[in-house]
């Protein structure tokens, strides 16, 4: 009996968590303008999402979001990995201080990050647009990359960098041929994490996107919702994003599980 309630409670929680997404996914296969009206199965919303025309601004918002996410994730992966290597080679107090400084932006509310970056760009007289959004996203993504790469460095045999130098590698060659292959799994997880963080960010984006008419997905949906009623095409779009993220998550989990298994096997 006790077990039954425990199970029921779990399923109830899961249902509450996933019901909104499921409902959107289900209603993405009908044509009704208002969510909740079922007018029969149809994939028209999917075709109209991709055929463009009326929803040109939505498509360009998707494009902007993807470009910003890829550029920001790539740059923060490079920056974060370099930072992680640097922090790893510090000692004692210095290391603790820098680690804390790295953690603060992650705990800092997004709205504060957004406002402070907005004020920074304004005071420096930088016109807000693509560049400022990317810079802002790099700012909050980099600490997460550091956090992903750090454990790889800690697991690494500290002598292997020296072993590479000893065998005739220049410091640059040692980094490229020994350190990067070792931390690559951490860099990949860092990139994926940064990518998803960038895609769904709203608070920081809205403050740094400027007034030149640049829209990302999150700002588009926000503006759309305020105009009254969501564009029906957002339903298939949300479904696609959800499925993509789900696949990415599964890939990450399978990868880390495989790595753990391989480690187990070598022991």
């Amino acid at each position, binding site marked *: 009996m006790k077990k039954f309630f425990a199970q029921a409670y779990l399923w109830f929680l899961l249902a509450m968590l996933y019901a909104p997404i499921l409902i959107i996914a289900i209603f993405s296969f009908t044509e009704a303008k208002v969510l909740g009206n079922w007018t029969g199965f149809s994939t028209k919303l999917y075709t109209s999402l991709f055929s463009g025309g009326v929803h040109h601004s939505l498509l360009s918002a998707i494009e902007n979001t993807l470009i910003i996410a890829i550029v920001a994730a790539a740059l923060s992966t490079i920056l974060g990995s370099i930072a992680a290597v640097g922090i790893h080679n510090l000692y004692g107090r210095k290391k603790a201080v820098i680690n804390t400084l790295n953690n603060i932006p992650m705990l800092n509310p997004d709205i504060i990050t957004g406002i402070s970056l907005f004020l920074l760009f304004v005071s420096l007289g930088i016109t807000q647009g693509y560049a400022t959004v990317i810079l802002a996203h790099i700012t909050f993504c980099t600490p997460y990359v550091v956090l992903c790469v750090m454990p790889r460095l800690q697991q690494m045999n500290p*002598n292997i960098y020296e*072993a590479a130098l000893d*065998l005739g*590698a220049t410091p640059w060659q040692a980094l490229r041929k*020994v350190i990067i292959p070792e931390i690559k799994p951490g860099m990949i997880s860092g990139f994926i994490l940064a990518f998803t963080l960038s895609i769904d960010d709203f608070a920081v984006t809205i403050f740094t996107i400027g007034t030149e008419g640049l829209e990302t997905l999150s700002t588009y949906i926000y503006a759309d919702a305020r105009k009254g009623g969501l564009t029906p095409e957002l339903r298939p779009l949300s479904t696609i994003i959800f499925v993509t993220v789900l696949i990415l998550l599964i890939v990450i989990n399978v990868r880390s599980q495989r790595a753990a298994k391989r480690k187990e096997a070598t022991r």
Partner: protein
Amino acid sequence: MKDSNFIIELSHISKSFGDKQVLDDVSLFVKKGEFVTILGPSGCGKTTLLRILAGFGTADEGEIRIDGKDITSVPPHERPVNTVFQRYALFPHLNVYDNIAFGLKLKKVKDDEIELRVRKALKMVGMTDYEWRDVNSLSGGQQQRVAIARAIVNRPQVLLLDEPLAALDLKMRKDMQMELKDMHKTLGITFVYVTHDQEEALTLSDTIVVMSEGKVQQIGTPTDIYNEPANSFVADFIGESNILNGTMVEDRVVSFMGREWECVDEGFGENAPVDVVIRPEDIYIMAKTDSGMLEGTVQSCIFKGVHYEMTVTTPDGYEIMIQDYNAFEVGQQVSMIIKPSDIHVMHKERTCNTFEATMIDSTHVEFLSTQFVCNEQAGITGGEKVEVEVNFDRIELMDNKEDGMLVGDVRFILYKGDHYHLTVRTFDGDNIYVDTHDVWDDRDIVGVKIMPDDIRIKRV
């Protein structure tokens, strides 16, 4: 004059980490093709010295030459040396072949030559047919073999080995020792080997460098080091030994354990205080007879495989260790004989503690960063620099560190037959030498107390 045979010339190397001096004016010359072992307890600076030689660390002072060329500020990747690390340090993302070929590929050696040399190196370390194995799937011993192959495949002028066998089990270690020795012979490369294992050093080396506290204590062949230790530290560290306080009465006569002995040492001067070292296997033990040189009672007798190890106390209260093939029962009266050539006499490094000090006023003196009360000093004014001497046995150690005037920890314990000679290190890094009958353990934190009567003040 410099001998052109020297492949490695380390001159006056000093190195500090913060306030801690790890290498203090170390000089070392290594001949081409020699197997040199740097031996010492952990923290003696041996690994730091090797890292400076490899280029992973820089010396604060001194010069390093390899094959006559000054390489003091040459980065590690341009030095003609290769290193075998204690924890193997193989590249986990590469297989055995690519690990070994790593150095050759960087030097742009042709592919077919790389293949030839990698196979040859693998054969040398007894790992033929392991080329395509994942390094993570190898055992510790196999990984170390690959690490050795990865180093020697580059044909370095000098091979540096940093405790390469420390992580292996005893049986594997013995096998690898023999293989390393064979490899050294076939390759003709100079080996510089770092270890804390004195047996390993004695087995492998042409020359042993004994280090302690950042200083070279003795350089010599294994037989020299074992038979003629330069000081009590070397005697205690290499093998088992009885170390006793003695006095050199005159040439060839030394007094210790309450009687005079004939010995072979000369030139110490008359009535000079010395350390006497006798190896436990050099003392002949027999049932009590009148022809013995010394008598005693057996206190313990332990079977050690090849021999028995016995402790015998003399009527004067000295405790000596003896190794012999024959066992004597506990409590039995025995006689002992020591040959003159087995008595090793060494200069004492010091006969009392000497500290630099400053007078505060006529009854207070400051040394070891602490103020001590001393007897009234006539004619010495406050602020004057003086020298303070305190005898080893006049320093009192306390369990409770609050009871002492200053605090330190026990660093080195030497049993001298009837008392212990301890080195106590203060938190400022100064050494205090103490003779005591109490038993202390390594790294015990102790309070140190010195009474006014025991402080001798000398003007400088």
